[in-house]
């Protein structure tokens, strides 16, 4: 999206300079409208509403380099800012694992917690001949060029990895033959799939909620361990014989240089948000499933996740 890059800049500028010392700031490393922006705005709003912070949290949009610009900003210029939180998701971990942040590594910040997960999903148009994930995988294994996927991330990104993992489980070896086009977000990917330009879309469940209700798409599989509450009629990939679990968690990281005490405070506040009615409501409205993990547990989860994605990316050949 080249269109709205300047929008965030202004708010960045606005807040960066006008902010008084004690107000917390949340950086959304993308344009307004995406998942990171949602994370910052919702968490910021709820933090204030439940009284965890005194002043409204200032949301700064800092798009660039798929989150890399914000990452380097935090590492290089705000490393000891105790009032800074930054929105993160699986995409952050994926890019770190694939060394897409120009040499910066995951240990240069502290991951403070996740408070929701957007389960991965594979969907087709309502009039598609593929009735189950097995139909789709078998067609793709027979002729990898026959099934084209559309997703919201660039080649090699998280949305691209999901179908590749499933197809590898299904026995496909030459995954470079699988067609994938990265478009401007999940909604765009659905539009292309409903239009018949691609055969399937790969994304998160929140991205297809409206289209599911309208009966325009059919979800073939959700990539979770158990079926998702509220979407019980969508089978998991696992129960169809493909052991792939991939969800886009929504969480935060904070600068490396803050005190342990401050880190625990943020973890505590995040847990409060996770338990609030407002967050339950926001999750329900946006198709998120509960997934709360804060503090050192979460840091451990991230470390193993990054190691996994790194290994997988090498196996697939996304990185050398």
């Amino acid at each position, binding site marked *: *999206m*080249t*269109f*709205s*890059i*300047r*929008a*965030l*800049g*202004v*708010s*960045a*500028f*606005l807040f960066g300079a006008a902010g008084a010392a004690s107000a917390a700031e949340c950086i959304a490393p993308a*344009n*307004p*409208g995406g998942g990171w*922006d*949602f994370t910052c*705005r*919702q968490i910021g*709003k709820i933090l204030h509403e439940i009284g965890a912070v005194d002043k*409204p949290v200032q*949301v700064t949009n800092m798009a*660039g*380099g798929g989150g890399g*610009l914000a990452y380097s900003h935090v590492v290089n210029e705000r490393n000891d800012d105790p009032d800074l939180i930054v929105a993160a998701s699986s995409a952050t971990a994926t890019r770190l694992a694939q060394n897409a942040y*120009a040499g910066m590594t995951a240990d240069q910040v502290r991951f403070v917690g996740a408070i929701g997960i957007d389960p991965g999903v594979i969907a087709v148009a309502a009039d598609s001949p593929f009735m189950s994930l097995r139909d789709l995988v078998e067609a793709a294994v027979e002729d990898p*060029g026959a099934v*084209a996927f559309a997703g919201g991330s*660039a*080649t*090699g*990104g998280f949305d691209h990895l999901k179908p590749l993992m499933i197809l590898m489980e299904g026995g496909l070896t030459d995954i470079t033959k699988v*067609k*994938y*086009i*990265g*478009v*401007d*977000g999940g*909604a*765009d990917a659905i*539009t*292309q799939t409903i*239009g*018949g*330009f*691609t055969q399937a879309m790969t994304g998160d469940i*929140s*991205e297809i*909620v*409206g*289209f599911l*209700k*309208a009966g*325009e798409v059919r979800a073939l599989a959700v990539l979770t361990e158990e079926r998702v509450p509220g979407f019980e009629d969508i089978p998991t990939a696992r129960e169809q014989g493909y052991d792939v679990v991939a969800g886009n968690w929504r969480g935060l990281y904070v600068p490396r240089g803050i005190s342990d005490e401050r880190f625990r405070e943020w973890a505590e506040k995040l847990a409060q948000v996770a338990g609030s009615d407002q967050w339950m409501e926001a999750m329900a*409205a*946006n*198709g998120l499933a509960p997934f709360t993990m804060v503090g050192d547990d979460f840091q451990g989860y991230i470390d193993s996740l990054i190691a996994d994605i790194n290994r997988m990316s090498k196996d697939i050949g996304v990185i050398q």
Partner: protein
Amino acid sequence: MDILANLALGFGVALSPFTLTLAVIGCVLGTVIGALPGLGPSNGVAILIPITFTLGLDATSALVLMTSVYYGAMYGGRISSILLNIPGDEPALMTTLDGYPMAKKGRAGDALVLSGVASFVGALLATVGLMFLAPLLSRVAYHFGPAEYFALYLLAFCTLGGLASRNQAKAAIASCIGLGIAMIGLDNTSGMPRLTFGHLHLMDGVDFLVAIVGLFAVAEVFFFIESHGRNTSIGVRLERVTVPVRDIAASGWTMLRASGVGFIAGVLPGAGASLGSFLAYMSEKSIAGERGGFGTGVPRGVAAPEAGNNAAAGGALVPMLTLGVPGSGTTAVLLALLMTLNITPGPTLFTDRPEVVWGLIASLLIANFVLLLLNVPLVRIFVRVLQVPPWVLLPGVMMVSFVGIYSLSGSYFDLLLMVGFGALGYLLRKLDVPTVPIILGILLGNHMEDSLRRAMVLSDGDWTFLFSSPIAIGLWLAAVAGFVAPMFLRPLLRKPNAGSG
């Protein structure tokens, strides 16, 4: 009458003294923001999002405020285009082509009133279109795959040839400069940096606002320094500002056609208001033919892009509301606002949350009428700008540009780039190279390339895929005709200079 009942529901939500006050405030703020170079509609909306939270506005009030600012900025953008030859925001780019020459002829007031009316017509028709056709039109997007989008962008560039320069090669050079600049930054498809020379500032590419403000505002100041303030519209004696009834009547069909073209362009995700005003202007220009005098300051050339871009602004709401796909930067910001209010746009929004949709539509209608009332009588005040002596006005324009661009990233790098674009713009315009195609190249370059590459992924590198649907073929034919026709027509008509561009 479902629609009437719904509309009544919408007005019930949106019509109260409080929301009306918000609408007026939003319209005034939006007009000011739109008129200032560097600050556009998406900035305006983005700046105000936190304010709505601070004020604790409910969903409807927040929407009324935001849409007023959105439409207000679309109106405001034309003011600096016409008075100063500096587009206030990117969709107002095309308005400079005839608006500024018209102002130079001493008809600044007429141009402003006419364009205000055109904006009103465009926005009104688009809102009505949104009301009746949104669920239907959202399906248009399903017929545009990568190949069709590529052909659409190609059409835009091919028809540029006849624009503002008599030399098609020079117009093509300008397009290439723009497209070339657009390639800088992260490659959307592979995520790899391109042509950044290891410069972190270039990772995100060159912001087209930096280019617009540089090529127009800064270059304009250089022209003033060269001429010491002579030979410009500033300081021109003003006739009384009246409503140019004859011009408005003569542009009636132009406004209607331009609104239609703009609205459709707006509906297509990714095309947006800039393409809307551009296509509206180009189609009117070709209907009028070389004798229409487009580019020399004719009223129809002012009415077309303004009707087009305001209609596109309304059209862009269609994919945003029905598909959740923002058609422009501003709608992306509006989308963010909706999501924060726990409203998820999508195909079921119209049935799930009618009060939101119809409240939004009602507030668009309200904002539009408020803006017409504000803009036409207030033209006198805007025109006063021309009586400010150039030695105050021009430094003022330059300083506003600096602050506007500085607010993007807070770094001096964009400012240096802007000054560089200013010098480039001065030299290019001296050489009769139009600068509008540069901006369009930067705006659309990545979309165009992405479409091509996606098409090739889907077809396994088979180039015939680009011509494999009726829509694509139609767009290709139009593109070829748009490029070739001026070459044959121009020598026949021997038209003199087509304006300064």
